């Protein structure tokens, strides 16, 4: 179960606050997974008490957009801590899907990859398994397939420690790179923080999703849980 609360001393009108929280959640707390399970209790609430002397922020305020984006980035930071604490997690994984036809498609594809047990176990095993990533993209529950073009899709691992070469291309324009630099792949996958980059090449929208690997520890924790 995910519970969370954000409090602020800014005066924000309640409708504006609700809209802000919904926007932020759609790009933060609704973009995380540990095990693909949705709880009966998940709740994020927010209170703005106006203790700071400044004009009330409504949806038409000039500051509304800035505060909304600050709340969104703040929500991302908090949401990512939950994934970092995923039961048995040894890897923190950012799944970046870009150049999609629309945000919803990008998010659905990122979620599909993030919830694939085979992708998550491959990452736990430090296996650059592009086939499982492509497979997860291929069965994503998209409304239609217009965001997917098998001849334009690119899948890479991105090194998160700023080492070079940063990008390890696994699939280029739909063609798997069979001569992968195994040594470089092992270096990148040995890091705690991983990034999977999927470039769909069919639009300009993008979404990020955060997940973790699936380890034996997860099974141990949840196997002997007694309710």
């Amino acid at each position, binding site marked *: 179960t995910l*519970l969370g609360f*954000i409090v*602020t001393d800014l005066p924000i009108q*309640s409708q504006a606050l609700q809209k802000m929280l919904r926007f932020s959640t759609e790009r933060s707390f609704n973009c995380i997974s540990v095990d693909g399970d*949705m709880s009966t*209790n998940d*709740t994020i609430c927010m209170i703005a*008490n106006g203790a700071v002397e400044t004009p009330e922020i409504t949806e038409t305020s000039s500051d509304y957009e800035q505060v909304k984006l600050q709340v969104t980035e703040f929500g991302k930071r908090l949401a990512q801590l939950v994934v970092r*604490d995923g039961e048995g997690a040894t890897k923190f994984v950012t799944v970046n899907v870009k150049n999609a036809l629309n945000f919803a498609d990008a998010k659905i594809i990122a979620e599909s990859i993030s919830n694939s047990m085979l992708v998550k176990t491959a990452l736990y095993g430090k296996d650059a398994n592009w086939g499982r990533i492509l497979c997860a993209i291929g069965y994503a529950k998209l409304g239609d397939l217009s965001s997917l073009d098998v001849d334009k899709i690119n899948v890479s691992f991105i090194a998160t420690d700023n080492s070079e070469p940063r990008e390890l291309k696994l699939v280029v324009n739909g063609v798997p790179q069979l001569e992968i630099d195994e040594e470089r792949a092992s270096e990148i996958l040995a890091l705690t923080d991983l990034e999977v980059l999927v470039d769909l090449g069919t639009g300009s929208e993008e979404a990020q999703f955060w997940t973790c690997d699936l380890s034996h520890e997860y099974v141990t924790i949840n196997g002997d849980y007694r309710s």
Partner: protein
Amino acid sequence: QQGSKVIDKYSLYVPKTGTFPKGFKVASAATGVKKNGNLDLGIILNTNQSYPSSAAAVFTTNKFKAAPVLLSHKVLEESSGKNVNAIVVNSGCANSVTGDVGMKDAREMVGLVNEQLHQENSTLVMSTGVIGQRLQLNKISQGIKDIFGQNKFGTDFESWLNISKCICTTDTFPKLITSKFTLPNGTEYTLTGMAKGAGMICPNMA
């Protein structure tokens, strides 16, 4: 041995200090609901009187919504998100799939805090933990009374850290972040956030 590289997540991700928003105070207690005796009840309170507070929330879209979810949603609807000045949270028991009695128990939790605030519809409630069990209301009610009766509230870092601990279940570290921001007109404001979660995580809240 794959996972052998153990990371000290606590020292990496738990702050050691922080500045917190004006006009909030927080309290936590160990009521005994958690078998290990850890903190398991927390209350956030808005003490600012200069502005009718605003509240908002997003909730799970799971079909089997827990009693605290249904009640908090109702409070927000009836209050239109205005003048909600408290959040009460318990961990150790999710009060989920508990039917009418679960709703009654959640209402009692909210009622106890509203009573202290001398206001109706002013408290949101959250619960997390084991599904399908009733809240041990005797312990939680006593915990709420002790928090107010002994004025366990504080605004210091330790108080904020403790309330982020009291909502934990299988978490290995409390999740607390706080940041200051500046508006174009130079006004400084603060966002403080707490979260819990380590398993059963793939929310789709609306």
